[in-house]
């Protein structure tokens, strides 16, 4: 009886008893499991008809165009056919120049986000809408007009997808992506406007 009491008192607890786990063996076997399973996954990808590159690539590669060159790069992503889309990427400084020049800005975010704040003078064209029809204010534009598309921030992709639609389906030739998006513009303090109940806040 005494020995049982001693045993129950010295019981190390739920997490404490993990010390009795044969860790060396566990680590060794875990390494084997991870290696074999990863090998299976990568091999399956190699023989699959829809294989994807091991290193992630954006569906559309946005390239920062130097002002004095016309260099354009096409995408290399497996799911997008070669040459299907060609877009130009612009940084904040270049976008500001375009803004002063009077280029058309298109906001690809949802309408409520647009109403809460956007680049001054931008046109709202949510991706979901563009997939169905093109609103009159965009459809009426010259196809050689330079369009600056943006979405939320650098990680979002709706502007890139919208760019693909505008070029491939509607024939626009000069489509640019503002990679920093709304957040970069707003944080830089450049002109914005906000439409709540169709009233401008005067900024």
């Amino acid at each position: 009886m005494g020995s049982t009491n001693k045993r129950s008192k010295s019981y190390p607890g739920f997490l404490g008893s993990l010390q009795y786990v044969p860790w060396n063996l566990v680590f060794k076997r875990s390494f084997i499991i991870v290696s074999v399973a990863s090998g299976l996954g990568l091999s399956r990808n190699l023989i699959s008809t829809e294989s994807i590159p091991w290193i992630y690539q954006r569906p559309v590669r946005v390239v920062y165009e130097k002002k004095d060159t016309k260099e354009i790069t096409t995408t290399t992503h497996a799911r997008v056919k070669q040459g299907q889309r060609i877009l130009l990427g612009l940084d904040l400084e270049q976008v500001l120049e375009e803004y002063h020049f009077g280029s058309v800005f298109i906001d690809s975010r949802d309408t409520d986000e647009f109403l809460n704040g956007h680049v001054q003078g931008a046109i709202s064209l949510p991706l979901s809408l563009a997939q169905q029809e093109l609103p009159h204010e965009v459809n009426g534009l010259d196809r050689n007009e330079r369009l600056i598309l943006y979405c939320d921030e650098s990680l979002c992709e709706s502007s890139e997808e919208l760019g693909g639609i505008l070029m491939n389906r509607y024939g626009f030739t000069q489509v640019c992506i503002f990679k920093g998006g709304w957040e970069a513009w707003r944080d830089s303090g450049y002109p914005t406007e906000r439409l709540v109940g169709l009233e401008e806040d005067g900024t």
Partner: protein
Amino acid sequence: MKSRDPFYQDPRFVAFLRILVGLFFLYASFDKLFYPVDFSESIRNYRIMPEWSLNLLALTLPWIEFTCGLLLVCGVWVRSAAFLVSLMLLAFMAGLLSAIWRKLDIDCGCYHGASQDLFRRVVEDALLFWMSLYVLQKGPGYKLVPDSETLRKTST
């Protein structure tokens, strides 16, 4: 007097937990095994991992989940599988909590038919984490075919 030990459990209970966790991981991995592009997008939405690693994770993680699930169900290399499952669950919980903290409205990318309520997913993962730690601690529990160590113990 074994019942005095608060952590003593019937080997059948341990086996039940191990099979439960195993089946869950098998089910969770199934959709991701065949649609790595969608899973890669799901990981990307969390905005935690560097972009270059997304496809590699999407190609390997579901297979690790699948293998661990299979091993747990079959009762082979149980502690190692439970260890890996615990690590994965910790990572999933960290990702979910971080998404909740940053108020990201995202598809959790957990498994087919999973609740989109991220809080609920954290609770589910926490429960599974406890189960997998338990299995890691106790080993396989009841096995249909006893291993050599069990046979040696029973014979002495």
